[in-house]
């Protein structure tokens, strides 16, 4: 029973990473209408930036995380302005943006390979909280608790932002129709910039935390998050932050429990089997409602 509880906690921590990444990916897809293949590289680069801040500048843990998060956000802004803004200005639609995002994926992945010397680096011991708390006899690693807390804060914060604030209303309006939103007094340009930064920062946070807890800072970090985060977005629904968060955590738990009790080779299989099942049963995600479209 204790083993089971431990594995559920491991699953929650892993799933929290997927959830954080999925929130960023979903925000971009819902608001900007871009299927962003470069999104995983934001996570890799945020982790690399946080590692550099720790090793080169000797910043303490909270500031190093902040450096990574800001780096993720700024990188997302840069990619948005270089790769997507010219296309948006011409009204070129989602397809061309998909290709420019693939281009940036190739570029940033390859540069991340150079930055880490084609190796998998890790954060030095003692640069992050490694304390072990105990609940009865069950160990609770500080890093896992921190990851789950970060996910909960980000999910509630962004959910409130999108659903309850004026800015969130502007985001949803731009996501539905940019021109109509502009007529309604929204500045789409600002909304786009803020959304890109927020999405990059959220995924950057996922990248930094994943880099610490998996001891792997390299270009492959973002790729793993991208595939699983993408699955969470499809299961949870891209237009609802809560859905992506719940789906991310559920995928994490399912993965860890499968690896523990069934077989490690089914670990990835279970994610995608769940994905297929959800596509068949609830194609619009956990919180999806049947919408209607006027011609």
């Amino acid at each position, binding site marked *: 029973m204790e083993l089971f509880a431990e594995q559920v906690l491991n699953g929650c921590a892993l799933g929290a990473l997927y959830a954080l990444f999925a929130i960023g990916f979903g925000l971009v897809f819902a608001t900007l209408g871009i299927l962003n293949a470069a999104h995983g590289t934001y996570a890799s680069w945020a982790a690399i930036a946080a590692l550099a801040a720790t090793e080169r500048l000797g910043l303490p843990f909270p500031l190093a995380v902040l450096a990574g998060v800001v780096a993720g956000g700024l990188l997302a802004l840069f990619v948005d302005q270089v790769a997507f803004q010219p296309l948006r200005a011409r009204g070129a639609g989602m397809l061309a943006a998909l290709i420019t995002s693939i*281009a940036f994926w190739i*570029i940033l992945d390859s540069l991340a390979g150079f930055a880490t010397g084609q190796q998998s680096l890790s954060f030095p011991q003692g640069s992050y909280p490694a304390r072990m708390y105990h609940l009865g006899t069950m160990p609770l690693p500080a890093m896992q608790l921190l990851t789950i807390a970060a996910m909960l804060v980000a999910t509630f914060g962004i959910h409130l932002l999108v659903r309850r604030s004026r800015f969130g209303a502007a985001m949803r309006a731009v996501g539905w129709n940019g021109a109509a939103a502009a007529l309604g007094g929204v500045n789409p340009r600002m909304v786009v910039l803020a959304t890109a930064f927020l999405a990059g920062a959220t995924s950057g946070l996922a990248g930094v935390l994943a880099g610490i807890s998996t001891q792997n800072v390299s270009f492959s970090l973002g790729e793993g998050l991208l595939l699983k985060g993408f699955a969470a977005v499809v299961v949870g629904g891209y237009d609802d932050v809560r859905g992506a968060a719940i789906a991310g955590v559920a995928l994490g738990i399912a993965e860890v429990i499968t690896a523990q009790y069934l077989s490690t080779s089914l670990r*990835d299989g279970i994610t995608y089997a769940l994905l297929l099942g959800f596509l068949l049963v609830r194609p619009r995600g956990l919180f999806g409602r049947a919408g209607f479209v006027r011609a």
Partner: protein
Amino acid sequence: MDWLSDTWAAYQSTLGFAAVNAVLALSTYAVLSAGVLSFASVSYAAFGGFLGAQVMLHAGIGPLLALPAAILAGGVLSFLVALIFLRLEGHWMALASLALVLITRVVVLNAPALTGGVNGLSIPVELPIGVLILLLLLLMLIFQRLAVSWYGIAARAVREDPAVAASLGMSPRRVQMIAFLISGAVGGAGGVLLAVMLQFLSPDTYFVNIAFTMIASVVLGGSYHWAGAVAGAAVFTALPVIAQAVVPAMQDVANGVALLLIMIFLPRGLIDPRAWRRRRAARRRNA
């Protein structure tokens, strides 16, 4: 003359891969031309490729005879996929098809009887490059005939505006179903041709990379004409080769930058029928 034969030897396989990528890109173009963004061509290619490979290995027949089996396999799979996907709306369909690509790899890993599992599958079969080019030309001819048929016109109408198309008596669902079937058949063929080109299939052969190659070829070349898929595949296959020859150290970066620049300056792709029509209209006005 030596120079010519050396170049030919060096770039023969690039030409072969360009032709195979063109076939796969045409599979993606087939659904895109009816207004559906779908990456499921990868799954048709995987099914057709592995099935075709098994047929070649066990029945001992050549690639040309395995081709019909692969086409049929791709077509059947695309029918099943279309039954599910056509219930979804645009954005969700794109996500779902990408999910299908991820699922394909898991299925390939867990069906070792058909796919060789983790170890992959070696296919010691050769297809002369001339035959490959001929097959591509035949396929291009078919797409040209389709583009000017009732189906091609209906597909264009459905892509531009499904509601208007429906009000004119075309059933968007039916047109898109046909598009899926064409995509499946062509994708299956592309899958087996890729298998013959590579002579080895691994679980990663039919995965995200090839999905992005297909869609990038179509959009790069121009998604409003079938020739765009062929031109895009040629450019997309040649780019890494050129990048490696010019800047070997930064080949991936150069490749990505080239892709980025082409898309930013030509967002509708290299081959754009609308631009041709405008130019023709401008000439007529000036004359």
